[in-house]
């Protein structure tokens, strides 16, 4: 039936690994743990497909073969302890098979020892603030100008003409490749959430509470995310951009930012 062929089509599509602009599936991401997260997602998905094929298969056969119009007489059985035991035990076993790798990944996610960099992320209505603890660099990060202009109701600007519409900021978060980056997430006002899919990190920013998470980016590039907790009228307009650069480039960036802060301070 429709559902079954849809599922097969879905399965074919998800088997692809390309990270296209237009995506059907979760990104594999650029950290070791993002890949593990993706694998868990696919593991549970394929189990669901398998169970679906069996259950829907039996249903479809029944729908066609066991119809009154085919002249069948209905059977009279209405229970079977054996069947009940089997189809209770098998799901439990499947769940245990899933639970083990999932728990292993969860333990890894909690291990935030030996960070190379610590960044305090503060959420505001409706922008982000980043403060590099040791490097002494801090700045606000807001929706980029081009998106700001286009987002207004009836703005007259076609969003398709704006690069990375609603996913671009004026000052991105810059981090070095292969460094363990520890994020300390909090909020200035209401609950927000910091989410970058390619890093497989989502952590709520709650006023009065500091939440810790970490990532280690393996590939250079620009990765985009959004606020993931309803926080008021511009919840959809406070994106996150993370630029992963080579360690030397990161150091150069830090020095430049420090210089420009000193320049501003000395003109006061």
């Amino acid at each position, binding site marked *: 039936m429709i559902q079954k062929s849809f599922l097969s089509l879905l399965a074919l599509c998800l088997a692809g690994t390309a990270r296209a602009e237009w995506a059907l599936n979760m990104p594999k991401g650029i950290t070791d743990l993002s890949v593990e997260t993706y694998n*868990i997602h696919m593991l549970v998905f394929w189990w669901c497909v398998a169970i679906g094929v069996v259950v829907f298969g039996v249903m479809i056969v029944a729908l066609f073969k066991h119809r009154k119009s085919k002249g069948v007489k209905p*059977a009279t059985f*209405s*229970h079977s302890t054996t069947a009940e035991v089997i189809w209770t035990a098998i*799901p439990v076993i499947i769940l245990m098979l899933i*639970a083990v790798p*999932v728990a292993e990944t969860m333990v890894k*996610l909690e291990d935030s020892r030996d960070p190379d960099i610590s960044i305090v992320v503060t959420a505001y209505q409706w922008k982000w603030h980043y403060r590099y603890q040791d490097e002494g660099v801090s700045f606000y990060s807001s929706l980029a100008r081009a998106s700001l202009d286009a987002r207004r109701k009836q703005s007259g600007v076609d*969003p398709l003409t704006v690069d990375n519409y609603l996913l671009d900021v004026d000052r991105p978060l810059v981090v070095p490749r292969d460094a363990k980056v520890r994020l300390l997430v909090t909020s200035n006002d209401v609950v927000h959430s910091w989410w970058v899919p390619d890093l497989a990190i989502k952590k709520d920013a709650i006023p009065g509470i500091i939440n810790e998470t970490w990532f280690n980016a393996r590939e250079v590039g620009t990765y985009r995310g959004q606020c993931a907790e*309803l926080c008021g009228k511009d919840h959809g307009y406070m994106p996150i951009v993370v630029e992963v650069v080579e360690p030397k480039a990161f150091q150069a960036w830090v020095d430049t930012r420090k210089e420009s802060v000193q320049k501003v301070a000395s003109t006061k």
Partner: protein
Amino acid sequence: MNTAVADALDHHDDHGPAKGIGRWLFSTHHKDIGTMYLVFSLTMFFIGGAMAMVIRSELAIPGLQFVHPEFFNQMTTMHALIMVFGAVMPAFVGLANWMIPLMIGAPDMALPRMNNWSFWILPVAFSILLSTLLMPGGAPAGGWTMYPPLVLQTGDAFPFLIFSVHLMGISSIMGAINVIVTIINLRAPDMTLLKMPMFVWTWLITAYLLIAVMPVLAGAVTMLLTDQFFGTSFFLAAGGGDPVMFQHIFWFFGHPEVYIMILPAFGVVSEIIPTFSRKKLFGHDSMVYAASCIAFLSFIVWAHHMFTVGMPLTGQLFFMFATMLIAVPTGVKIFNWVATMWRGAMTFETPMLFSLAFVFLFTIGGFSGLMLAAAPADIQYHDTYFVVAHFHYVLVPGSVFAIMAGAYYWLPKWTGHMYNEALGKVHFWASTIFVNLTFFPMHFLGLAGMPRRIPDYSTQFTDFNTVASIGAIGFGLSQLLFVWAVLTAWKGSKATDRVWEGSHGLEWTVPSPAPYHTFETPPKARIANEAFE
């Protein structure tokens, strides 16, 4: 029941139902109150549906065309509140009111006057809630989940939101008490608990869930109220409070709430599939145990809505395992429905079509639920359209289809006429096709990275959003077919007592339409056997 009471009722019978508006305003009659619940629920379904139309119209293409973000947030918030508390829950209560007394051989609900209040509180509650759309600052816009501190930024609408939630809760609690007292006390003499039909069983379990959790919601929103107006700091860190505690309290209510919305659906489907398969429900007793298991487990999984909040590892592991476990009794129910169909002799009238679609599509919703239970993966799904896809699958082709299945199934009993079967089938196919068009693409949107509750999105999400919007408009328009089917239900051929060839149960032993008073004396043992044949 002694003969003196029966005699008194016989006298009463001569008058028939009261005339005029008084019949409805002051009704203590389960059939009339059931009808009012159902009409109210259908009205709310269209109002909530209109809000969905606003949402999907804005999301059809990127850019902001029709509404401001503030109003968009009001629409998402109100759409959910109205659908959950105004459409789905009252519909099931309406079915309960109509059918539980008929199914157990009782003359009415045990507490008829409280029944009246349970219903009439609802129009008041929703008038208050809907009136907030016209207030300065507009309707509540912090999500139906009402998280602080954001919800405390609601304007004038805030106390009205809290008050209307309280009223809805009181209505549900009173209704639940009524259901339990009725089922425990008014069953026909031969009807032991395990002989009750599944619809009655699932409502008994649902009623206990309601009594357990609606007061928790009442407590949570009262604490919001006092934080806002009376200087308390339950959820404000400045005063030593904790915003996360609200989430715990809310979801302790919220998770059982979703099972409150699905268990009666399981009951309806468990009545319909055996009828149209001409075969007894497979594993009746284990269906009861499975439903009870689900109800129990629903209390210990709430924090799976909070995996990103900063929970310690042990907490995450516990809630993840407990959530995954719910798949087991739910799976048992699905397998039992399929086993009922297997080697039956099926026909595909409208109630059966909706029930079959329920089994298929609710299962898909269940699969996405299992995926959501895996906490590391949930980090990527949480607060995205993947969650929106999941809960709409279990609620729309889940609960709503079950309600419609029940409506078509029992309409001939209520009206005495067969509804237009061709119209019912068209309604079914249109609904099924459009509901999948609307919600299936949302899985992909969530996986691709689109968050929830946003009025505008980055351009790579366009195609699926457009498809979903087209589906939504189609689905909404298709429901007009349902209204037409109900309005013209009196035009069809006369219905027999039995109505459906394979039906069993006490409700099919009374004439169609059911007389105003039924089972004034309990059905005899021979008739009571009907229930489990």
